[in-house]
């Protein structure tokens, strides 16, 4: 089982755990393996019980609490590329990129999209299940990548048509000036956006985002659910109707403005300056959520914050509510 420990150490280092954590995790495992052997398990059984070191390291990592030790918010390696499997996709367009910055303008209806970075030098656009490419405008002019479903082609009964899946890969060192994404009902996965303005809008599609580093972030949805992890920004505007938002690991240097009707907000490891929370019945629940100031305007929505560090004070600017309240535990 020495190999298990060695592999585990390697995986933990890859995920940038600090030395103290690595030491502790390895010691815990040494002890547990020792205990397992003493109960008469042979090497094979032990192996089965302890499983795969890579998965384990990721599992420990994704629990998010490791963040507290890393002040510089190293979100799962912002400069590394997420592997996207394009084996089943067809390459439809490639555009060479000459400058270091560009903008993104994507507007889709029901198609799914995966957006990520890659090691290559060009923009690559893949599709799967696309019926007619003429229904789309795909272009790259003046450093703006545009992918749009043409309006006139949207049929009233468009739900009867099976939607396509797109994968868009962008060279990894590119920064975006504007990153605009809009979808009606497609599911979206976005990885690594370094930009000045980042605006993501979804009517009912679910969106998963990892790693945004942007001066401004604006997110809005009617009924789509958002899952975000790894954000660094100066300001964050969030607008929900009934969709929910789950956000892990975010550092917002300025204001965090939230408007919701009934959508709930779930935050974990989030820091910001002022949170302005306006809600009808949606709740805001924060674990390790450290705003400096908080203002609540609500009908029945609550704010519930549970933090370990009691020394970091949260100042309540305003609490105006019919039956909602702010609870800090």
């Amino acid at each position, binding site marked *: 089982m020495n190999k298990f420990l060695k592999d585990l150490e390697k995986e933990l280092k890859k995920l940038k755990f600090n030395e103290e954590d690595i030491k502790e*995790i390895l010691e*815990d*495992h*040494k*002890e*547990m393996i*020792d*205990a*397992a052997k*003493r*109960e008469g398990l042979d090497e094979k059984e032990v192996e*089965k*019980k*302890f*499983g*795969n070191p890579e*998965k*384990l390291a990721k*599992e*420990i990592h994704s*629990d998010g*609490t490791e963040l*507290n030790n890393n002040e510089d918010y190293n979100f799962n390696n912002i400069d590394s590329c997420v592997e996207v499997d394009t084996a089943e996709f067809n390459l439809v367009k490639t555009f060479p990129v000459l400058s270091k910055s560009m903008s993104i303008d994507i507007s889709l209806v029901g198609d799914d999209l995966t957006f990520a970075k890659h090691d290559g030098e060009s923009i690559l656009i893949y599709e799967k299940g696309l019926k007619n490419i003429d229904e789309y405008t795909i272009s790259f002019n003046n450093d703006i990548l545009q992918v749009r479903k043409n309006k006139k082609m949207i049929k009233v009964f468009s739900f009867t048509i099976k939607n396509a899946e797109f994968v868009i890969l962008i060279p990894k060192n590119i920064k975006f000036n504007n990153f605009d994404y809009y979808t009606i009902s497609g599911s979206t996965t976005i990885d690594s956006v370094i930009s000045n303005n980042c605006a993501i809008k979804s009517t009912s599609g679910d969106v998963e985002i990892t790693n945004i580093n942007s001066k401004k972030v604006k997110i809005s949805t009617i009924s789509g659910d958002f899952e975000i992890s790894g954000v660094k920004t100066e300001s964050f505007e969030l607008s929900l109707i009934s969709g929910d938002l789950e956000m892990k690991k975010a550092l917002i240097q300025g204001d965090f403005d939230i408007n919701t009707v009934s959508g709930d907000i779930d935050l974990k490891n989030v820091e910001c300056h002022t949170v302005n929370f306006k809600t009808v019945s949606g709740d805001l629940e924060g*674990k390790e959520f450290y705003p400096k100031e908080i203002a609540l305007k609500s009908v029945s929505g609550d704010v519930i914050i549970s933090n*370990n560090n009691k020394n970091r004070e949260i100042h309540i600017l305003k609490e105006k509510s019919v039956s909602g309240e702010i609870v800090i535990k």
Partner: protein
Amino acid sequence: MNAQFKRGIVELCVLSELVMEDMYGYKIINNISQDIDVNENTIYPILRRLTKEGYFTTYIVESDLGAPRKYYKVTEKGFNYYLELRDSWDQFIGGVYEILNKGGKKNEQILERFRKRTKEA
């Protein structure tokens, strides 16, 4: 099973084990894996996270056999969290059974009713 869902359930099981008595890591894993299909990969991260969040504390016990062992102990905060989780679990699973049992409790019953209904149609 959905990973997130499973994680939540295992978390409840870990809490439940430790509410009964203080235990060392491997014992918790062993106890739980006797009843449900989980391995160390799932349980250790939960132990670690709940410790960091102040639901457990740990202490070391020297043993005559081999290395000293780290015991986990539920704090008051952890106990309250357990009650909360347990409540929502009971409520949830109760609700699920309400729904499932609408169609009958036994497979034969359900099948009979389904046959009858589809025949009419």
